[in-house]
């Protein structure tokens, strides 16, 4: 009697990128160093193109062009194009022109620095009021809107009108996860899972039983954190939450998901939304839009037949379109 063949080993690598945690999982004999090299090259290119916090990024140049047309790389044109697509598909609920609103709330630098500054402020040390989010008390108003962005791709060029400033945080990370998974699977001929801060893309033939993903409030929580484990074989899965990338300013809790209609953090009935889609990018577009949409998100997801798990503030959950029933809904809210 012959022993059953052992399933291919899964190798893992975790590292920091874009101010968050990245994880690569490879199935089979593919060499992790080669996969990491491919991922690093893609991620470095994306960061240089669209970081809002790097003085040398293309996006910084675009945002400081004062409304003048700016020649850009094909990569940044693609990223801006995807952000505009997100806005179109969500009727403007996911809008890339929220950079000024985020900056007014104090999110004007790498998030680790934002949190550190907020902590210093809460201890009563000196911190500029303008730079720690006093903007929350100001009548922020609607963001300029994605229609103020004029993009052409031949040649790649963008013009921001009406005072628009771009933040591609809602789409670029998930796009990069899709891109890395696609490149690694194609070049190394293996199955791969790429997670960038919880935006997950998979490519290649998944291991038997699929890739097991724990959906929870915080991507940095452990693999058995309160939540639910599901398996995916293809496409992407993403989670948006108001509980992470959140900070406190002048006694008020802020988070990074902006409601374009108010220019302020979305006040949602959902604290966390996870969505599965054909790619991580689309999953993340929808999960972000659901936070902004609130109660009407369930009908929207059902209409589009997109599987999702939505967690209310009290921890109770709603699932849509074939998402597995939640056996033990989490009720603990992260502090």
């Amino acid at each position, binding site marked *: 009697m012959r022993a059953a063949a052992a399933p291919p080993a899964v190798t893992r690598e975790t590292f920091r990128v874009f101010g968050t*945690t990245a*994880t690569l*999982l490879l199935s089979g004999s593919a060499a992790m160093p080669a996969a990491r090299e491919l991922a690093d090259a893609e991620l470095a290119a994306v960061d240089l193109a669209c970081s809002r916090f790097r003085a040398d990024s293309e996006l910084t140049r675009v945002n400081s062009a004062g409304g003048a047309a700016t020649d850009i790389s*094909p*990569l940044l*044109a*693609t990223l801006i194009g995807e952000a*505009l*697509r997100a806005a179109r*598909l969500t009727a403007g609920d996911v809008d890339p022109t929220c950079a000024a609103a985020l900056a007014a709330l104090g999110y004007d630098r790498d998030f680790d620095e934002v949190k550190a500054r907020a902590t210093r402020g809460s201890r009563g040390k000196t911190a500029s009021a303008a730079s720690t989010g006093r903007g929350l008390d100001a009548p922020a108003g609607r963001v300029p809107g994605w229609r103020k*962005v*004029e993009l*052409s*791709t*031949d040649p*790649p060029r963008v013009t921001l009108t009406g005072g628009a400033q771009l933040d591609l945080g809602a789409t670029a*990370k998930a796009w990069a996860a*899709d*891109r890395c998974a696609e490149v690694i699977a194609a070049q190394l001929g293996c199955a791969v*899972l790429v*997670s960038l801060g*919880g*935006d*997950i893309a998979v490519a290649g033939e998944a291991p038997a039983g*699929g890739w*097991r*993903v*724990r959906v929870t*409030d*915080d*991507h*940095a*929580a452990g*693999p*058995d954190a309160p939540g639910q484990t*599901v*398996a995916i*074989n*293809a*496409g992407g899965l*993403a989670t948006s*939450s*108001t*509980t*992470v990338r959140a900070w406190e300013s002048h006694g008020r809790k802020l988070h990074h998901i902006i409601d374009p209609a108010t220019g302020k953090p979305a006040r949602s009935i959902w604290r966390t939304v*996870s969505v*599965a*889609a*054909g*790619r991580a*990018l689309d999953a993340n*577009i929808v999960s972000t839009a659901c936070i902004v949409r609130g109660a009407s998100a369930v009908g929207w997801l059902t209409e*589009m*037949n*997109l*599987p999702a798990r939505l967690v209310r503030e009290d921890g109770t959950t709603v699932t849509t379109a*074939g*998402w*597995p029933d939640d*056996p033990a809904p989490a009720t603990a809210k992260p502090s």
Partner: protein
Amino acid sequence: MRRDRAGSAIAARDAGLRRVTRLTWQVAAAGAVCSALIAAAFGHGTSQQSASQRGASQTQTGSTGQTPRSGHQHHGKHRGSGLVIPSQPPAPAPGAGQVTSGGS
């Protein structure tokens, strides 16, 4: 004499009724034509507006151009919404995850 007067009165009444009936039909027909014209005009206006909005979007998003990195593989189906739905929903899985998806 009296019978003649009565007869002409009846004839006048019948002629008046015919005129009223004809007028009613003409008004109804004119109303139907106007309704059709208005419907066509509004319908045309709506489709023109949508088309112009779509055109504006294309200009704004520059979706007519080619970019080298835009050809992602999609593991799912496009819906009318333009979002790619997964080829199958997530399956239940026991135990802990290999990786975690949460806010970041």
